[in-house]
């Protein structure tokens, strides 16, 4: 049974340039994939390959021109964010920017609950504390502001914010890019642990092939808005077919071998 399914997602972005008549076009897709509960899908590719755009399409920040997104076999309507299904949550690339500087962490985490659930203040507060504990923070942290936390703690808050609504799928846009290696591995382990416990499907965009190989079950390789290869992680890393994938994997292997020797 597929938890999450994307069928032929196409996005066409035409920006009319004020100075010239030829509009700049960017085309993404068609993208299709499916995801089982507890599975991790990684999307890799160079800059401007449309990875972040794909993430925005999945959570509903941008609207696709055609194609369908299905959750448990039911199509999701992303047109209206206020009423759409909140089974998909997003973790942003820069956890510092994605937390409101003027609010305490408790208020930041309470916001999605207030908007999407019918819990009263006491229940919301309990859930906030529970979620903070779940990601390895303390209940006292709900009174803290963004500037009082370290990068790793901010990333944990971003994770807590994504998990607090009990989503089925979490989309993360390079969640570990800003972290140093030790904190990064902590975050990766935390994420894998939570994924195992909660059984969420995880879509993960990254440059770091080491982490991709470590945590993902499937990989999609993108270049210039097109999917050029997709399949099981081990297959792609062992027998890459497309030229671009070969280059990526070779570069990664060279790095690993050099570190090993």
């Amino acid at each position, binding site marked *: 049974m597929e938890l999450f399914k994307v069928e032929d997602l196409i996005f066409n972005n035409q920006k009319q340039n004020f100075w010239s008549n030829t509009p700049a076009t960017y085309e993404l897709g068609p993208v299709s994939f499916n995801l089982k509960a507890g599975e991790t899908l990684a999307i890799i590719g160079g800059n401007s390959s449309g990875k972040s755009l794909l993430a925005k399409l999945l*959570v*509903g*920040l941008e609207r696709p021109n055609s194609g369908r997104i299905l959750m448990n076999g039911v199509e999701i309507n992303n047109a209206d*964010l*206020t*009423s*759409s299904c*909140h089974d998909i*949550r*997003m973790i*942003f690339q*820069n956890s510092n*920017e*994605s*937390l*409101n*500087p*003027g*609010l*305490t962490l408790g208020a930041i985490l309470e*916001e*999605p609950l207030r*908007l*999407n659930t019918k819990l009263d203040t006491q229940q919301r507060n309990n859930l906030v504390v529970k979620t903070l504990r779940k990601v390895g923070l*303390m*209940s*006292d942290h709900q*009174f803290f*502001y*963004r*500037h*009082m936390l370290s990068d790793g703690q901010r990333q944990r808050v971003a994770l807590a*914010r994504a998990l607090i609504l009990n989503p089925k799928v979490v989309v993360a846009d390079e969640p570990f890019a800003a972290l140093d290696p030790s904190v990064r591995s902590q975050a990766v382990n935390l994420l894998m642990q939570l994924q195992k416990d909660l059984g969420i499907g995880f879509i993960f965009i990254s440059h770091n092939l080491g982490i991709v190989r470590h945590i993902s079950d499937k990989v999609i390789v993108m270049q210039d808005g097109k999917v050029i290869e997709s399949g099981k992680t081990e297959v792609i890393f062992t027998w890459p077919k497309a030229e671009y994938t070969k280059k990526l994997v070779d570069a990664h292997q060279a790095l690993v071998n050099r570190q090993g020797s």
Partner: protein
Amino acid sequence: MARFNLYQEEQHPSPLQYTWLEFQKNHIAMGGLVCLVLFILITVFCPLLAPFDPNLQKTGNILVPPSWDANGGITHIFGTDGLGRDILSRVLYGCRMTFGISILLVVFALLVGVGLGAIAGMSKGFRSSFLNHTLDSIQAIPTILIAIIIIAILGTGLVNSMWAIVLALIPQFVHQTRDFVRSELSKEYVMAARLDGASKIQLFARSILPNMGETLVMQATLALSISILDISALGFLNLGAQAPSSELGALLSQGIEVAYIAPWNIALPGGALFLMVVSVNIVGDGLRSALKNRLLH
């Protein structure tokens, strides 16, 4: 501050307490605050503080010097004016009038300006542009000049001058709010709030407004000192508050007739006006940096 305490801390400072802690570190701002609180107390409790009715004329006590002068008496601490009215009472009532009206005007301009600016910032295209620039034409002319034009049409009077000042203050609030909302809308935390399902109003009230304190305090302080000066300037020119009224600017213009023989008639209201504007600016500046530092350390 210990970040990790084994036991849950009993009390955590609220945002307001954080601001107060930061504000206390600035001693000059604290001095300004004492002064400002004094003016607020005067504004509220003026009838209890003033020893005489401000319009009570004592024909036997014309131009009595203040109490520190050799010829002065303790009955009239600040002396009396050309009609035998007690200057202390008049200055107290004058502070009440000038300061109270200015605060009223700024609060009104702030509410209207922030409201319009928020709508302009959250909407796109023509509507946004229209709301943003409708009142711009007013900004091209100095406040006093607009006030004079409005008074020329509607006639002299305190209420007319109040309208003129409000009209002149609103566009700045609109601009500040719109620019701020525009710059915040593109940030990721607003995008995250949108994904939480926040509507536009919730987005503004819950996500953007908590970060606007600094901008608003800065603009409100500026507006408050402008409106204090304008009200008294119009009073001084006999365009705003009229003669028997004890508005500070009107006091000055009445005192100028006897300036050479009784300089305390203009020195004392002038001093009060000066102190008022300085304390407003100092407190505003201190509050702004406190709000900024609250989110830095």
